[in-house]
């Protein structure tokens, strides 16, 4: 386990993140959507979600296309947002909207990290989180999806706020074939967990989501949201071992069952023990192509 980052460094990162004026061109529906995601599902009405999704035509069109991706479960694209909500459910449509907004919130320009690779990893992790929680038969699947999708937003913050320093960290990781967070800590003194946390706080994300973003490399440090953080940690590792990592070879051996996160998750979900991890990995390989398609859809903007 790595040493925690000093409090004064965290404060500095927070100040830098706050100070940037050109915070990503966030779609107008994004922040209201985040607020809505914080509400208990029974307080959210169908009409409100439909209104939110329909607010921006290009985003609405994109949501409909994403909904028809095999990874979201509809065989053909729904005709209207309302039809999508009825077939997929409110929560899933909210996460689809979040997926589309996230792609737009961070215009990828001169990133030290290939944005396609970044999105493949984030979406892959979101899928794996959802699939894991489905196999375990408990918990909120869409929340798991959202946690997987957002866990690495700190990398995007680093790309925009600390491009030079982060560029050096990426180079350091590639040369040594080591995990990115290890390289960040070695070269920058903090990681995407701290910068992601700063943005998550700025955006008023829920406490659980802040924990995921801040502690997904060390789930045992999370207090209240440990099982969710542990789920993201394991899914992140599995993605990096199955062609949905950061596009370079990480010289490491991963023993998921021996990872402390496994024990944390097992305490909440006894069914985790019965998950066939080999088959799960093979199934993940099958999803890679679908995830790549989805990334192209999201990055293509609103045009079909």
């Amino acid at each position: 386990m790595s040493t925690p980052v000093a409090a004064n460094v965290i404060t500095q990162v927070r100040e830098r993140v706050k100070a940037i004026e050109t915070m990503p061109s966030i779609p107008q529906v994004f922040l209201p959507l985040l607020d809505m995601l914080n509400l208990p599902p029974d307080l959210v009405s169908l009409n409100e979600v439909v209104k939110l999704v329909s607010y921006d035509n290009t985003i609405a069109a994109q949501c409909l296309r994403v909904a028809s991706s095999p990874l979201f479960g509809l065989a053909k694209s729904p005709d209207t947002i309302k039809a999508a909500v009825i077939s997929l459910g409110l929560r899933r449509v909210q996460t689809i909207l979040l997926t589309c907004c996230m792609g737009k919130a961070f215009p990828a320009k001169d990133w030290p990290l290939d944005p396609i690779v970044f999105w493949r990893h984030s979406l892959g992790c979101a899928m794996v989180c959802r699939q894991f929680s489905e196999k375990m038969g408990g918990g909120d699947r869409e929340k798991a999806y959202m946690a997987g999708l957002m866990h690495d937003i700190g990398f995007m913050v680093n790309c925009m706020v600390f491009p030079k320093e982060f560029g050096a960290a990426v180079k350091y990781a590639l040369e040594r074939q080591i995990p990115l967070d290890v390289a960040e800590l070695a070269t920058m003194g903090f990681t995407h967990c701290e910068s992601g946390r700063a943005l998550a706080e700025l955006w008023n994300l829920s406490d659980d989501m802040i924990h995921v973003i801040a502690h997904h490399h060390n789930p045992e440090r999370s207090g209240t949201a440990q099982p969710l953080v542990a789920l993201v940690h394991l899914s992140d590792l599995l993605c990096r071992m199955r062609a949905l990592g950061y596009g370079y070879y990480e010289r490491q051996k991963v023993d998921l069952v021996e990872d402390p996160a496994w024990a944390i998750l097992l305490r909440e979900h006894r069914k985790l023990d019965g998950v066939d991890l080999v088959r799960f990995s093979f199934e993940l390989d099958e999803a890679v192509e679908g995830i790549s398609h989805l990334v192209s859809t999201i990055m293509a903007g609103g045009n079909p």
Partner: protein
Amino acid sequence: MNAGAQPAKSSPALSAGSEPVDPVYRQIRDLVYKVSGIYKTEEKLYLLAAGCGRRMKQLSAKTSREYWDHLTAHPSRDGEMRQLLNEITIGETCLFRSQPQLDALRKVILPEIVADKTKQVTRRLRIWSAGCSTGEEPYTLAMNMMEESAGTLRNWTVEILATDLNDHSVETAKAGIYGDYALRSTPDYFKRKYFVPVEDKKLQVRPEVKKLINFSRLNLQDDSRMLFMKGMDVIFCCNVLIYFDGSSKSKVINHFYSNLNFSGYFFLGTSESLLNLNDKFHLVHFPGAIAYWKPSLKSGKL
């Protein structure tokens, strides 16, 4: 991976735009996995369908549903499953079959073994290719170890044991002559460095590569001989376990477990799983590759 909203069986194929797959083949895929641990991913389902097609022709079965009955309801279902497994694993052998396995071996496992054994007097690495067929795997391993001889494996002795049940395969393996098909994944660099051209546009493995390998005939069910195969650091046993039924399969796997040194690794074929036939091995992931690890003495996780 199936989408969450619908039951697995009716979820659409991920390869959007391609011909929809007959759902019976997904059922057969799941059955094959349950019986053998071999998993045909969505993009390889056509291979499974082709294998089924050949068997259906033999049996004069007209529909996939009828063939499903042959696999599940007929008195000869076990034999039929074996025939199908033969069909779907045939021709999978070639040199450099799995680059991710080779990367795991060279980039992660070798440095780990070398670090573990630095204090030992004899610096010897032993790898066993169990069920080596016509030699593609042991030669691939030998060439890759030779690439490490100036680096990680400097001053180390490498021994590769290659065994197969079939005498004819072992003889073919010893000759080490391969055509284009077997060499389709072999990088040119290796072809130039470790092969010499022979007749019929084929290539033969150079003697210095052969020197690293000890070929012999071995029946993995021969308990007395299995007891002597000790001290292995890494064992490869790809698409071989399908030939054993439940109880003899777990016996062979237990042998492999004892044949390995502590901290040793066991590799199966790239789409193969040990299922739950052994609970002492730890499942470990490397980028793009899965292996089974025999815990070290000091890890206290035996």
